[in-house]
């Protein structure tokens, strides 16, 4: 797992994806920070985090698009799958590399904290609450993106499908409102990402949401392993 993790970290930077992702995240979080937080004269950082949801929906698929699809396309998966390592360590090595980059991008919030500290007081509990809410959301989304990347050989397709799927997850709350059958509606609402995430950013700590995001991450990483395994049996 370590070898794959290190290679992926290197590849993020040599392929330029790291720069696109970090710049994208910094740009939009910076915009939301300056207009939503500094501009409104509040020291609460949660408006920025709640706006970042939709940005992450489009940025994470860029991060994950080539992770498994490129291996298949360039046949480098033959090197990985014939090496004496397990499938899960291949998937997890890649997963944690993407997650690390996500954490690096997200940690820009601490720079914003310094800026807030210059003009006011930082509310560390909400800041850290938001930070971890975004972290768990990213953990779930990256697993979904990685899974989608395992399904195709085409990076662009992987990115577009990823964006589409995450966007649908974003819309789940609004879609749920139109479902006439009550128990289905309830089920969709409880599975919806956006409302759950908003709750967290408002400082409402809900363990079930954390568990839900982590479960999604575990589940989709498991699916990715199954896809790699199934390919061998094809």
């Amino acid at each position, binding site marked *: 797992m370590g070898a794959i993790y290190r290679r992926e970290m290197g*590849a993020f930077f040599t392929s330029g994806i790291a720069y696109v992702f970090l710049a994208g995240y910094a740009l939009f979080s910076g915009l939301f920070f300056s207009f939503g937080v500094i501009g409104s004269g509040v020291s609460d950082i949660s408006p920025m985090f709640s706006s970042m949801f939709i940005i992450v929906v489009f940025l994470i698929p860029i991060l994950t698009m080539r992770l498994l699809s490129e291996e298949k396309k*360039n046949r480098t998966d*033959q090197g990985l799958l*014939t090496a*004496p390592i397990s499938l899960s360590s291949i998937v997890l090595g890649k997963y944690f590399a993407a997650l690390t980059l996500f954490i690096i991008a997200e940690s820009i919030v601490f720079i914003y904290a310094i800026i807030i500290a210059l003009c006011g007081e930082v509310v560390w509990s909400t800041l850290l609450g938001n930070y971890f809410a975004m972290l768990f959301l990213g953990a779930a989304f990256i697993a979904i993106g990685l899974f989608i990347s395992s399904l195709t050989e085409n990076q662009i397709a992987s990115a577009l499908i990823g964006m589409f799927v995450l966007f649908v997850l974003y819309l789940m709350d609004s879609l749920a409102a139109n479902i006439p059958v009550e128990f289905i509606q309830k089920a969709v609402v409880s599975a919806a990402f956006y409302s759950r995430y908003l709750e967290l950013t408002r400082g409402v700590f809900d363990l079930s949401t954390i568990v839900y995001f982590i479960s999604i991450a575990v589940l989709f990483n498991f699916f990715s392993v199954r896809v790699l395994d199934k390919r061998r049996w*094809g």
Partner: protein
Amino acid sequence: MIEVRNLSKRYGDKKAVNDISFSVGKGEILGFLGPNGAGKSTTMNMLTGYISSTSGQILINGVDILEDPIGAKSNIGYLPEIPPLYVDMTVDSYLNFMYDLKKCKLTRKAHLKEICDLCKISHVRERLIRNLSKGYKQRVGLAQALINNPPVLILDEPTVGLDPSQIIEIRTLIKKLGKNHTVILSSHILPEIQAVCDRIIIVNKGVIAADGTATEIANKLTNEHKMTVRIEGTKRTAEDKDEIISALKAIDGVKYVRADMEREKGVYDYDIESEDEIDVRRAINSLSREKGWNILMLQLSDMTLEDIFMKITTGDIEAVKPEAEKKASLDDFQISMQGSMDFGDESSSDKSADEAEGGEKPAEKSDKKNEKKSKKGGDK
């Protein structure tokens, strides 16, 4: 070292590999030969655990690849048809990555240096793989397979895309590696297999069509003695033909004579087939002295591996199969192996010299066939 039992692979209804069994001993270099789509790569991918078999068993160094994939894979170095190279890495960082990936315990610096020297890539270690030529990429692929010094090396078409001198280098390297490793080498290039391998398995349509040394396969498949002789008659016109043919036919042991094309002005080639075990070359020579003819060329066209390959792989398989099945039996193989371990260096017998002279002919023939085929295709 490698034991394959009743291995099959199905893709839907199509059987890519159909019930093949063989075993490879320690230090043996096995050539895997077959036309495109014969199941070579599928077999290799199954041996290395890249894809799984539909049925059958593979033991690498006694470890079942399905039961203990990690244990089995740690015994294998694999160079796939397309080397699994990350083009965005330098050679050095790639090899270090593979070193980590294979959980190699040997001293990193010394081990990688040794491999790089062996594969002659020491001077490109700092370069990006993207910028390397095909030949160098292939060598990096080979270097990667050698990391952790695996007892089994599986090389899928290792010389594809290399220039002739590189091919010779790689072949020499493989021969060298064969002393300490068990090597399985696939190729559709016959001379390559002939030059490098102790033993050959010819696969066609997913089954083993022949198994043994090149000479064994040749001997079991054919007992014909054919040759082409270019004879200059006394008149140097087409009239010579009949005279020469009838005189040649009169030689004891000659079964069949046919005049071929006019190769030089007034001089014809004659295809001669003799009875088994009878060498008519001397008789032809003395006949021509007697008649005042000149022999301008004599070429044995005993079946080369190429002919056999063509024969096996172009539909004639039913005729060959019972023979092949007999040969596939391991005991049979091992007994006969003692006789001819190294067919590549049969310099003691005059046969190889003749073959060397005649070596060009079958290639020419098949080239012409291909040309004809492609012409036909073009006309359509």
